[in-house]
């Protein structure tokens, strides 16, 4: 879609997304049933249903944490797509999009890590556990940080764009491998926690889906806004460069002009000197070498 149309959509998307997320959150805390935890010593009947386990509140984090995590990976995919297109077409607009998508990815990864870490802290009582998902997200965060470190380490803008695109693609290929391997390599020390979030009852599935849609919309709105800001920053760099070119061209022209004047002056002085008596008085100051530059 054209830039104008999607720009118009942004505020609408933002509002809609925020609304969806709000619905998700409210539903989470009201209608969605609590998830089962450890077994109770005795079962009890609550609201006409037999309950045999403790009921967990902490699982509610899942309703926003997982959509955010998925959104971060989706945007990494967007970044990788634009990176590939850039490598093929060399179109700088693609590079801006790739870079912006990586920024959004970073933000959402940080959000994922914060919520995930708090969830871990509650579940396991420790601040960090080398379990597959947390580990993979940690690596993902390091990859995205590495992307920006790489961009800052180079000077030539063409090289920056090219190398960053290559690294973006490499990271995007590496991320699912990382997830797979940390999941499939059995660890003898830490038990691997397989969170089977499949088979959600509708009362839990609907707020999750609403939250997912809402987060994606908000993420897209943020991406568009960030794109505008980044494009403006690039324009500033472009203008600065043109100004520099202008100034250097102007100063070169001025210097060339000055040189011409001195040359003609020297020529007339020499001509005068040939048929003038006051050559000594005139030639000596005129033979002062002009300053360089």
């Amino acid at each position, binding site marked *: 879609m054209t830039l104008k149309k999607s720009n118009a959509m942004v505020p609408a998307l933002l509002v809609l997304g925020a609304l969806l997320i709000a619905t998700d959150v409210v539903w989470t805390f009201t209608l969605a049933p609590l998830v089962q935890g450890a077994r109770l010593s005795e079962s009890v009947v609550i609201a006409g249903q037999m309950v045999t386990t403790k009921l967990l509140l902490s699982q509610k984090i899942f309703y926003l944490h997982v959509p955010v995590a998925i959104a971060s990976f989706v945007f990494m995919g967007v970044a990788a797509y634009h990176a590939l297109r850039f*490598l093929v077409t060399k179109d700088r607009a693609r590079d801006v999009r790739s870079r912006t998508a990586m920024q959004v990815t970073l933000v959402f990864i940080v959000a994922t890590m914060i919520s995930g870490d708090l969830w871990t802290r509650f579940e396991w009582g420790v601040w960090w556990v080398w379990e597959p998902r947390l580990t993979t997200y940690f*690596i993902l965060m*390091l*990859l995205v*940080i*590495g992307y920006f*470190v*790489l961009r800052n*380490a*180079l000077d030539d803008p063409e*090289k920056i764009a*090219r*190398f960053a*695109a*290559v*690294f973006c*693609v*490499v*990271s995007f*290929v*590496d991320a699912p*491998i*990382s997830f*797979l*391997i*940390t999941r*499939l*390599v*059995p*660890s*003898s020390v830490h038990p691997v926690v397989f969170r089977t979030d499949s088979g959600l009852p509708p009362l839990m599935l609907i707020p999750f889906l609403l939250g997912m849609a809402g987060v994606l919309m908000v993420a897209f709105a943020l991406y568009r806004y960030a794109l505008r800001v980044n494009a403006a920053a690039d324009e500033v760099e472009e203008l600065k460069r043109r100004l520099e070119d202008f100034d250097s061209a102007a100063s070169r022209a001025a210097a060339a002009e000055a040189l011409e004047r001195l040359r003609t002056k020297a020529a007339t002085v020499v001509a005068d000197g040939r048929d003038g008596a006051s050559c000594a008085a005139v030639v000596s100051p005129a033979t002062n070498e002009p300053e360089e530059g």
Partner: protein
Amino acid sequence: MEEKRESLRRGDVGAQGAVVAPGAAVGAGAIGVPRASDAPAKPSTSKPSAFAQYRALLGKDVRQELRTREMLTSMAVYSLLVLAVYGAALAQVGDKLQVVSFSGGLLWALIVFTSLLGLNRSFSHETESGCLEGILLAPVDRAVVFLAKTTSNLLFLLAVELVTVPLFFVFFLSGAPLSATAPMIVLPLLVGTVGVAGVGTLLSTMAIDTRGKDVLLAILFIPVAFPLLYACVSATGVALAGVEGTFATFWRSLALAGTYDVVMIAAAWGLYEFVLDS
């Protein structure tokens, strides 16, 4: 650019010129750059096959390293230093701790650090002597350059491991009961080093031109190589411990490491041309 090419043929490029130039000239001849002798009249005949180019590039690297042995020795010394650090780190541990249980991890950490050093140094030769530009001027397929570079890196890393791994055993595992399956660590070492060489070649090509290139290589390499590291440590640990019935884990980890190698090297191969300046 033209001057560099000329000087490469004439063999007067910097301090390493005496070592590099004959190799480069031979390599250049094999690659298909017309030599000074037949420059004016006829252009070179058919381009030599990709394999011949590959062999030439690889041969140049190996010959150069064998002549100076600079990189190998510094990497070997570096691994000794890391072992010294390990010694300090584990000195207070005493006899109660089962070193064998985490020796797989220690060994692979050693390999990663040494490899990072080796990957960067293999490229600094090229940039110092202008050799890389000479290669790029020749009509070589970029994928061949990648393969040659990766193979030479692989050979160097394996050579260093031949020194490092026995040293590791001497320093940390002399008293420990080694299982019968310990020799099987050769497999994850091989698979892992292949992956390190492949990914490392791509990333170090990107990192050479930057400021702080060693740190940058580490920042880029470690997250990308993490899954490989994870799988190889698991396989190595299982082999060293040699507990009955755990070998399914060994093969599974090895298979995962192999998958990593295939996927990432394919990706690096495809992306390499974008990383070399044309």
